[in-house]
């Protein structure tokens, strides 16, 4: 240690560093939302004696400080970089893969939770025995690009999990396994590098696979055209991993060469739009909302009748966000698509399907979302009473 004055300088610098960080927190107005992390930040807790006595105030104060501290993003980024430097290849379930690809770790779900989810789907099918029901279980990028995983990284076998679900649903629900078809296209950008979703191109190949497995004519590549709509997309994996220096992804949209006029009703919001795409999201951090505008409880998409002579065909899609870029393709075969996100949809699904004259049901989930799902099991409770 230096002596005399030097020592005093050291003391003052260290104390001032701590005090100024604290003071800055007190005087600077709170930031409500972190664009980078795509989440609401903890705001300054309101003092009350009961909150203090329960310890609640203390806990909230600490998370407020962590969220609002000056240069939070730099602290988090520096920490991740440093840990990566000494060998860590994972943060919060996200692997730092080769070639700057972030991949979600897949841990095989099992036990009672999976059984309950399966029972929920089977129950719904048994209430509507005349409708064909299929489940498109999307793999995540770790299964499609296994060579991008960091050396020795562990991620459970998704193919085996998909086969297991297939067996559990056998006889009632057709499982559509798209993994092999996607793996064949692994040299194309079919998954984002900074996000856990597939790209629209990945969704296109998955749709094509679904068409063929459900006995429909395959997709015609010449009927579609591609366009890059964004070159600066940073996804959820990037925000979770905290590895902020990766290059951004591009977002590619795939449209039919002959435009299909649509009406999209957001039932909860009471709005109707004439497009499936939300370009306003391309100005925000979470650009994946470009597809369908995020997750709504219920969307009803209608188009001009695909086959003017034949009967109207209605599809019910029960899904998580993986479906958002696939749904536009489904308009080729259906006149109306009802899109339900069970996290927000409160009604009786079986009754809804009957009343809306649904002809077919398609579940679309990725394997991780399917394993973690807490709503599908609730379908076991639904029942069908005869219409009044």
């Amino acid at each position, binding site marked *: *240690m*230096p*002596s005399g004055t*030097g*020592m*005093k300088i*050291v*003391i003052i*610098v*260290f*104390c001032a*560093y*701590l*005090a100024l*960080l*604290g003071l800055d*927190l007190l005087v600077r107005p709170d930031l409500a939302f972190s664009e980078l992390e795509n989440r609401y930040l903890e705001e300054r807790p309101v003092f009350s004696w009961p909150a*203090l*006595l329960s*310890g609640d105030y*203390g806990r909230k*104060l*600490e998370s407020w*400080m*962590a969220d609002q*501290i000056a240069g*939070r993003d730099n*602290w*988090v980024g*520096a*920490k*991740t970089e*440093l*840990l990566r430097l*000494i*060998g*860590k*290849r*994972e943060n*919060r379930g996200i692997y730092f893969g080769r070639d700057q690809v972030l991949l979600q770790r897949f841990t095989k779900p099992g036990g009672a939770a999976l059984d309950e989810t399966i029972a929920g789907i089977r129950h719904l099918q048994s209430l509507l025995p005349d409708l064909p029901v299929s489940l498109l279980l999307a793999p995540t990028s770790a299964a499609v690009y296994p060579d991008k995983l*960091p*050396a*020795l*990284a*562990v991620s459970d076998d998704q193919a085996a999990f998909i086969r297991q679900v297939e067996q559990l649903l056998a006889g009632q629900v057709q499982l559509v396994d798209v993994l092999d078809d996607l793996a064949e296209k692994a040299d194309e950008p079919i998954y984002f590098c900074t996000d856990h979703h597939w790209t629209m191109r990945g969704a296109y190949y998955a749709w094509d696979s679904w068409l063929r497995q459900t006995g429909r004519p395959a997709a015609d590549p010449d009927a579609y055209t591609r366009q890059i709509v964004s070159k600066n997309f940073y996804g959820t994996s990037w925000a979770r991993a*905290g590895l902020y220096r990766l290059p951004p992804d591009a977002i590619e949209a795939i449209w039919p060469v002959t435009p299909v006029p649509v009406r999209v009703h957001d039932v909860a919001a009471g709005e109707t739009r004439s497009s499936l795409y939300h370009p306003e999201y391309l100005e925000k951090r979470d650009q994946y909302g470009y597809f369908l505008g995020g997750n709504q409880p219920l969307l009803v998409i209608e188009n001009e009748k695909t086959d003017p002579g034949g009967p109207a065909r209605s599809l019910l899609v029960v899904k998580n966000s993986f479906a958002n870029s696939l749904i536009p393709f489904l308009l080729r075969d259906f006149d109306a698509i009802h899109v339900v996100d069970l996290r927000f949809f409160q009604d009786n699904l079986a009754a809804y399907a009957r009343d809306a004259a649904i002809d077919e049901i398609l579940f679309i989930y990725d394997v991780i979302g399917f394993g973690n799902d807490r709503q599908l099991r609730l379908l076991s409770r639904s029942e069908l009473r005869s219409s009044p």
Partner: protein
Amino acid sequence: MVFSSLTFLLFFLPLCLGAYFAVPQRFRHMRNLVLLLFSLVFYAWGEPVYIILMVFSTLVDYGHGRLIGRFRSRPRLARLLLVSSVAINLGLLGVFKYAGLITTTLRDLTGLPLEPLELALPIGISFYTFQTMSYTIDVFRDRVPVQRNLLAFATYVSLFPQLIAGPIVRYRTVADQLEGRRETVPQITAGLQRLILGLGKKVLLANTIGQLWQTVRDTPLADLSVLGAWLGILAFAFQIYFDFSGYSDMAIGLGRLFGFGFEENFNQPYRADSISDFWRRWHISLGSWFRDYVYIPLGGSRGSAARTWFNLLVVWFLTGLWHGASWNFVAWGLYFGLWIGLEKAGLGRWLNRLWRPLRHAYTLLVVLAGWVIFALDSLADIGHYLRLLTGLSGQSLADAQALYDLSAYGVLLALQVAICARWPQRLAAGLDRRWEGWLRPAWLALVLLLSTGWLVEMSFNPFLYFRF
């Protein structure tokens, strides 16, 4: 409140230092009052209700101390007062810490329909009751003068640097400092340095390696490989060492900021070459407390061999039990008592003839096996884990998860081994001399910056002593 939190570092500490040093040095009692008030806030932050308990404990020992002083000429009465004080202290511990264990054990043994009594453990109770007991016992033995100033005594008991995770500062150590200490610039610098290094140990080293232990802990034992089990227990050994010694460093450093000199609590324990040596280096304040207030009064090792074994049994039973109200801690204590007994009985002499690295290896193996007993609470799990470590459980030597963990944490583990060795400190001291003392402040600034960064993204920051 804990030291490794932003609330403490950015709000509490600057405010407390500011208020403390705003009072001129000659107003010693005012400075004590500032410390006392801040200490009460510090304690109340997490557990406001139990502050009553600490105040009660303070008053009981203050009162008993004064009464013992007054009735010193009447040894029987003085002894009765001592018994009363110790009984109250142990009674508090018994009710608030061990009631659950006692009731469940009684129920399991006798089959009586007892409702287990589960009270939230008042944080730090094991530390401050041991501290206040050291005061009354030492007053009774006439080792320290009676403290007449309640403010000074309350400052001692509640002193926030050592309040919730030790070291167990005996009254004797700080008796003169309470009213006669001087805060100097070199002391403050040294204190700051110690505080920052301790913070780094806790936040950067312990929390990071603790995640590896957490991964292993969350894996069913049947799914672990031998390599995985070794990585896990090594990670736990480093986590608890860096966490606990980091906490002690912070406590000692904070004490120095306010002019107190506490005794050391850790002295490179993983460099020990016998189990007796390990316990002279690990949690020194606890070991010496039991030595001075239990083992030696019982007769120590000066009686017959049988008597020594009995004394060891008592001391190590209590040492184990002190760490938490669970039988695995008792087993852990007795396990060390057994090794220390064996070393006293001749193993030590035999070991002394061995090459030092072999003695060191023996010590580390015994200590690591001990951490298994400490870290897992069911006997079945402990047995399984120990068999797994020896490779006799028939599980695979290494699996994909263990190899991945080795790749992800290998560098950190090697770094922690190096930090526990002697040469990095020599190297740092040499470099510091060459750079005329400016290397150290730069290094400290780096550690402080990184620790702040780690605390901001605080997905994993456990407080390990909630059972003590």
